Structure formats: structure tokens, C-alpha cells
């Protein structure tokens, strides 16, 4: 099974993590916990040696085994196993995808806070300003609503901007522009103006970043008509989705996760994109369909290890496309396994999981042998304290328990 590494954010300034955060998590065992923790595994992460080094250069990572992540062959490119490829981290994959698209099309430009000279708070735009200039990689003032709107206006008049929210949560300030203008103007203009904008940024629960830096905006944006939402989870699909989003004529919101930027993987050398509307089959199986995305994919895979040892055969699908859902891949899986578990990081109320539950019930109710189980985060503002933060988010042990109950 693939070993996963949950890295720290590349910019120490933003993610002020104590270097022993993992240790402190591990040492706190509440006796009231209803699930057991396997020895040697922390709640969230398999580490190679139990320490985490904040220095990005000295970071120890465990390589993701490509075979275990059985990516679907994309129509546009050869599969990842055809060439040796090259190894990089997820944020570098995003950077590579962005750089390639900027080279390919001079209308592609980047806007956001600290994307230029600083290189991006998570280094996704590192080096681009030097290469392409300050106008093409624009350092904006701190005015999310206005620079997102500016990106939309630029998109309507011929450019292809990539707007970065330094943290996805900041885009709450841009909600006016994203909902009204980004989503709707193609329609209200009768199709006269297209808005080929990409809005991207890191979101999700990090390591004790506090409530406001730990938000899951996909649940807030999902109702907006006229936009597509995708979430990347591996370097391979990060680069692929970035490129596909930039090439798409539709406005696309690309959700990255603060804790996944330092994942390492070997990706192909050749040009490839990942289809924006398709889900990714991570692990084929027979007993239960587990639908997940972004960071929870790794919790699921961690739980899958345990489940396999216990004799279960879960099918894990990374839905990737949060809006619209790939009901074909999902449906085929439901028809095969008849049991669905959704594992997401959104809150219980009104999250992606809630919508997915509704969509599956609507379309595949006859194929279900059991009610859909949806594991989501608690409807709680993410606490700062590590112990509490852990409990708000779905942990692998909960996933194991849920599958066991589902498969009874």
C-alpha cells in the first residue's frame, strides 16, 4: 500500500507548526475514544521515522508507490507507466503545470497575493515572476473581492487568468464576484462573454491553523451555477487538473490542500491533462465503494490497509470532480459493490458528501443494499488545540469501523 506523508506547509510563516506536533498528538490518548489505534500508526500519518522536520530541504519523505495509485488512463495522454518520468512534489507539479501552460499560451497570467516576488505562500508560483514578468505574475494588494473581479473582467476581455487565494478561506471575501460574476455572467450575457478563469488555492484542515484558515469552501461554492470544481490529491492529478482547468473555457475552481503540498510522486515527462469531469479509480475492489477526495483519500487508503488485512476489499474512488460528479464511474462502482461510504472533509451539513449522497440515492437507489454512510467533519469551527482538531476530522479508524458496519 502506498505510504503517505503529510508534510508541513512550505512557508513556515503561514503554517506555524510546532515541530513536535505529531508527537503531541500521539501521546494524547483519550480513554473515551471508541476506536482503537493501531500501534505504530498515528491518527493521521504514516511517517518514515516518526519525526517531522520543518526545514523543507531536510524533509524526509516516503515515496508514493505509483502502482498502488492506479490512475485511469486519460484520453489525452499516455498512462503514467509508459515512461520513467520525473519525481517531484505536489506543489512543484502544480508549478510545472502552470509554467507549461504559461509558456504555451501568452494570455495565461497569474494574479494573487504574494504570487510574484514571494513565489507564492506555498511556492506554487515560485520563479514565475522572474521568468514571465511582474504583469503576468501579478502581486495584488489584499483585496480579494476586487482582484478576483479583476480576473473575471480580464477573462471576459480575452485573457486567461489564474487567480490564487492565498488560503481558500480568503475567497469568502470574493464570494460576490465568484457567485455573481464568475458563475453567472456567461449566462446573463446570453453567451457573449466567456470566463476562462481558474481560481485556485489551498484549503482544508491543516495542522492547528485555527478555525478561519481551516475552511472547506467547496461546500459553500457548490451551489453556484456555471462553475466547475475540482480537487487535486496527487502530484499527477494536480498537474493534470491544473492544465485542464487552464485550458477549459469554463470557470474552474481548483481546490488544493494545505497538507498535501509535499507529496512526492513520479509523473510522466510528456504533456498530459486530467479530465476535469472524471473521477479517479484509486483501488478497485468488490465489497464497498469508498468515495473520497483531497486529503481524505490518504486517510481512506490508510484505512484500506487495515481493511485489507481484515479481509475486506474496498473500492476506493477519488471523485476529483466535486462539481459535476462523475456519476458514471461512481455508478459503475455502486452497481458492483452495492455499498457506499463517503469520506469527506467538509462539514456534516451541506457538504460535498451531502450532495453526493443525494445524487447517488437519486440515481442508483435500486443498486444499494444498505443506506449510504457519509463520514464528514464535525459541524464545529476547527479548534486550534491539536487533540480537538483531530477529532473534528474523519480519522482512518472511523473509516474502518464504518466499513465493518456497512459490510455486516
Amino acid at each position, binding site marked *: 500500500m502506498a505510504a503517505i506523508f503529510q508534510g508541513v506547509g512550505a512557508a513556515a510563516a503561514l503554517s506555524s507548526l510546532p515541530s513536535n506536533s505529531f508527537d503531541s498528538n500521539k501521546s494524547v490518548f483519550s480513554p473515551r475514544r471508541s476506536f482503537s489505534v493501531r500501534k505504530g500508526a498515528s491518527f493521521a500519518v504514516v511517517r518514515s521515522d516518526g519525526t517531522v522536520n520543518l526545514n523543507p530541504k531536510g524533509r524526509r519523505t516516503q515515496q508514493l508507490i505509483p502502482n498502488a495509485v492506479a490512475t485511469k488512463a486519460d484520453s489525452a495522454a499516455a498512462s503514467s507507466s509508459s515512461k520513467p518520468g520525473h519525481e517531484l512534489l505536489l506543489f512543484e507539479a502544480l508549478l510545472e503545470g502552470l509554467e507549461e501552460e504559461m509558456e504555451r499560451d*501568452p*494570455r495565461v*497570467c497569474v494574479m494573487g497575493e504574494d504570487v510574484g516576488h514571494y513565489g507564492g505562500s506555498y511556492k506554487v508560483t515560485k520563479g514565475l515572476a522572474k521568468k514571465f*514578468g511582474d*504583469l*503576468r505574475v501579478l502581486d*495584488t*494588494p489584499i*483585496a480579494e*473581492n*476586487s*482582484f*478576483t*473581479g*479583476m*480576473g*473575471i*473582467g*480580464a*477573462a*471576459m*476581455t*480575452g*485573457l486567461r487568468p489564474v487567480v490564487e487565494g492565498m488560503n481558500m478561506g480568503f475567497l469568502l471575501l470574493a464570494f*460576490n*464576484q465568484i457567485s*455573481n*460574476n464568475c458563475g453567472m*455572467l*456567461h*449566462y*446573463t*450575457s*446570453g*453567451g*457573449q*462573454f*466567456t*470566463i*476562462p478563469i481558474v481560481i485556485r488555492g489551498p484549503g482544508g484542515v491543516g495542522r492547528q491553523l485555527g478555525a478561519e484558515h481551516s475552511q472547506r469552501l467547496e461546500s459553500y461554492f457548490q451551489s453556484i*451555477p*456555471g462553475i*466547475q470544481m475540482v480537487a487535486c490529491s496527487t502530484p499527477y492529478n494536480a498537474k493534470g487538473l491544473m492544465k485542464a482547468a487552464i485550458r*477549459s*473555457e*469554463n470557470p474552474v475552481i481548483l481546490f488544493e490542500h494545505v497538507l498535501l503540498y509535499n507529496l512526492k510522486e513520479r509523473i510522466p515527462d510528456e504533456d498530459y491533462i486530467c479530465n*476535469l*469531469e*472524471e473521477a479517479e479509480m484509486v483501488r478497485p475492489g468488490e465489497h464497498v465503494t469508498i468515495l473520497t477526495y483531497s486529503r481524505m483519500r490518504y486517510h481512506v487508503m490508510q484505512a484500506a490497509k487495515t481493511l485489507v488485512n481484515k479481509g475486506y476489499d474496498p473500492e476506493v474512488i477519488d471523485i476529483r*470532480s466535486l*462539481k*459535476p*460528479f*462523475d*456519476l*458514471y*464511474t461512481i*455508478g459503475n462502482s455502486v452497481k458492483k459493490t452495492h455499498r457506499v461510504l463517503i469520506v469527506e472533509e467538509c462539514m456534516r451539513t451541506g457538504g460535498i458528501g451531502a450532495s453526493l449522497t443525494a445524487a447517488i440515492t437519486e*440515481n*442508483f437507489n435500486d443498486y444499494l443494499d444498505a443506506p449510504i454512510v457519509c463520514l464528514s467533519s464535525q459541524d464545529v469551527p476547527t479548534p486550534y488545540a491539536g487533540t480537538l482538531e483531530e477529532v473534528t476530522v474523519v480519522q482512518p479508524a472511523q473509516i474502518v469501523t464504518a466499513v465493518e458496519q456497512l459490510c455486516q
Partner: protein
Amino acid sequence: MASAFSATKFAAHPFNTISPTSQNKPLKIPTAASPFLGSTRKLLRLTSQLNLSRRSSGSVFAVSDVVKEKKPTPTPSLLITKGEGLVLYEDMVLGRAFEDMCAQMYYRGKMFGFVHLYNGQEAVSTGFIKLLKQQDSVVSTYRDHVHALSKGVPARAVMSELFGKTTGCCRGQGGSMHMFSSEHNVIGGFAFIGEGIPVATGAAFTSKYKREVLKEADCDHVTLAFFGDGTCNNGQFYECLNMAALWKLPIVFVVENNLWAIGMSHLRATSDPEIYKKGPAFGMPGVHVDGMDVLKVREVAKEAIARARRGEGPTLVECETYRFRGHSLADPDELRDPAEKAHYAARDPIAALKKYLIENNLSGEAELKAIDKKIDELLEDAVEFADESPLPPRSQLLENVFADPKGFGIGPDGRYRCEDPKFTEGTAHV
């Protein structure tokens, strides 16, 4: 400070904070500010020294230089040629007549929802937009019919859009508050105030990007952003003033200060009501102009647009204007003092220009009446066209949600939803 605004406060204002006795003061007509061009007494004095209500404070833009630079006309003392004058007149009459027709049609049940009419403010739209090229962009708010017309969108297309017909400029999908035209570069039409200003800033950014990154050296497209006094208390306004000045974007921010935001008087909502003064705070010139006088607006507009074209950056122009009707057709308009309305009705921009044209022998009564008639006919044709146009069929429902309809996703059967025949019928489940 001497201000045109204090003079227009009316006696019935219950929370007048300027002076406790103002309740008894008669309405003062501002004379210190902008001399009304229609008055022949002041005409000759004006043409030699164009006093556009320059304020002593701050780095307010000096406009009088413009007059010396303008092209020589047959009659050097006039601001416009006959041809230009007739264009301006026709455009303003079109705007006025169109809005009057809108009101008629609304009360006859041909259009619904929120309709915001521009009567009285025509000088601003005409004064600015008639100076633009086709590739220049205009961004407006919900009071956008006349901006679209001035920019060149056919009256037929606008009227059809208001009727919700498929031949409307936005296929009936936008409505009164969302006038768009890619051909004429009208980029909205926005329902929330302030949300169009960043879009305008983006259009200006594209112009600069084209020039500097894509190396289209002759790209000097200018964007005009129109919005009201209420918007000038909104964050997006200030954020965009900052960005536009910072990057010297080719944009002109045009404030149509008609003193009222629905029922909220500008003076009750704003700590410092002189909006033009906020320009220099961001590093751009701030100009105040009499928005009831199309020639004055035009002179200011010329320089502001030229400044933007030269790459010197944005300008903030505050046009003091007035809407003769309520905020929208649903507004009973009970709060505004009749004396205030009468004051501005006397400064009707169309009447003023007509007077100017006749008194300066640029045109005659007959010619102008012919233009009036031409516009009437145009509008009747527009209404007829709109009446006879078809309503949007059900099949139109899903067509413009996404530019690339693959965005609707993959259905349970493995095909993209947009390939489903029901999709083109508008009955597909998405």
C-alpha cells in the same frame, strides 16, 4: 466649505445636520459652482476660460488646457461642430425617449422586475460614451439601458431584452440590469452595486496586458466604469481605485452622483460627500463636473480618456446629475423634495443642448424636431420588433450555463450530459 451639495439640501430633510435653520431656508441654486452653459450670458466668458468648477483643495485636474489643444473648428469659440452637436442631441433624445417608452411598456405589462430609468442623466452617458471607439469598453450598473444605447447597441436589441425575448442582446437571459454586448464592448449591466467596478478594472488590465505583454503596441483601449454615489461608499470602489492607480490602468471611473441611493440621500450616507476628492487620496486626479451639461461633461471626458490612452492612468470624474424619475419603476419617490426636482428639471440636459445649438446657429428648430421624430419612429419600430419577437423556447434553458457544456458532467450512462438529446430540449436533468 463652499459646496454645490449644501445648496441642494432641501428644507424637508428631517436630519439636516448642516444648519439648524436650514429647514426654513429656501433652496439655493448653486451659482458658485458650474455656470450653466445654456445661459448665453456666460457663454463667451466660458469659452475663453473654461471654468469647470475647479476646487481649490487637492490636486484637482486642470481641464482648461484641453480647450487650447482641441482641433480648430470653423467657429473657434464653440466647443462642438454642428455634426458633433447633432450626434450628441440625437443620442440624448434616444436615451430619454427610450426610457420613457420603457416606463410605458412596463405599466402595460410588457416588462417586469426591476427597471431603473436614466431620465435626466443623459448628459453623462452621451458626454462620455460618444467619445469612445468601438473597442473601448463600458461597464455600468443596473441603470444601464442608456449606456448600452450610447455605445451603439441597437434599440431593438435592448427593447427585446427588456421584453425577455430571445432576440434581446442577451437572448432574454439578462434583463434590464444585465445589458451586455460583445460586439460593442458593453460589459454589463450588474445588479449589485460595485460589483462591476472590478470587472471594469479587469478590462482595463487586459488593455494594458495586451500592450505590454502581448506586445500589441497600438492597443490603447480605454474602459469607462459608470456607477453612482451610493457605490462610492462600497469597498470594491476603493479597492479598485487603489489597483487602477497602482498599475496605471487605462480606466476612467465615472461617478453619476444623482444625490440619491433609492431613498438614502448621499449626504446622510457619506462622511465626506465630495467624491471627487477621494481620487487624489489614491494618486489619481479627481474632477467634479456639472453632469447636467453635456458639453462640460464632454470636455472633461476628453481629457480623462486621453489621459488613459496615453498610459498615464485612471481619473475619477464626479458628475453632479439627477434622475428625474424614481430609483426604479417600483419606487414611489416620496422622499425627494419637489423643489429639488424642479431645480434639476430646469437644468434638463436635452433642453440645454437644444438651446445651445439654436443660439449658436448650429442647428434649427426644424432639424431638431426632425431628429425627435426620427427617434420616435425608431422606438416604435423597436417596440414592434420586440413585441413580435419570439419568447425563448425551453430548449434555450441550458445553452449558456457553460461555455463548454462538458461542465455539466458525465451522466450515469457514461455519456456527457450535454450529449443527451433532452439537453438540447432543455428538459434534461442536470
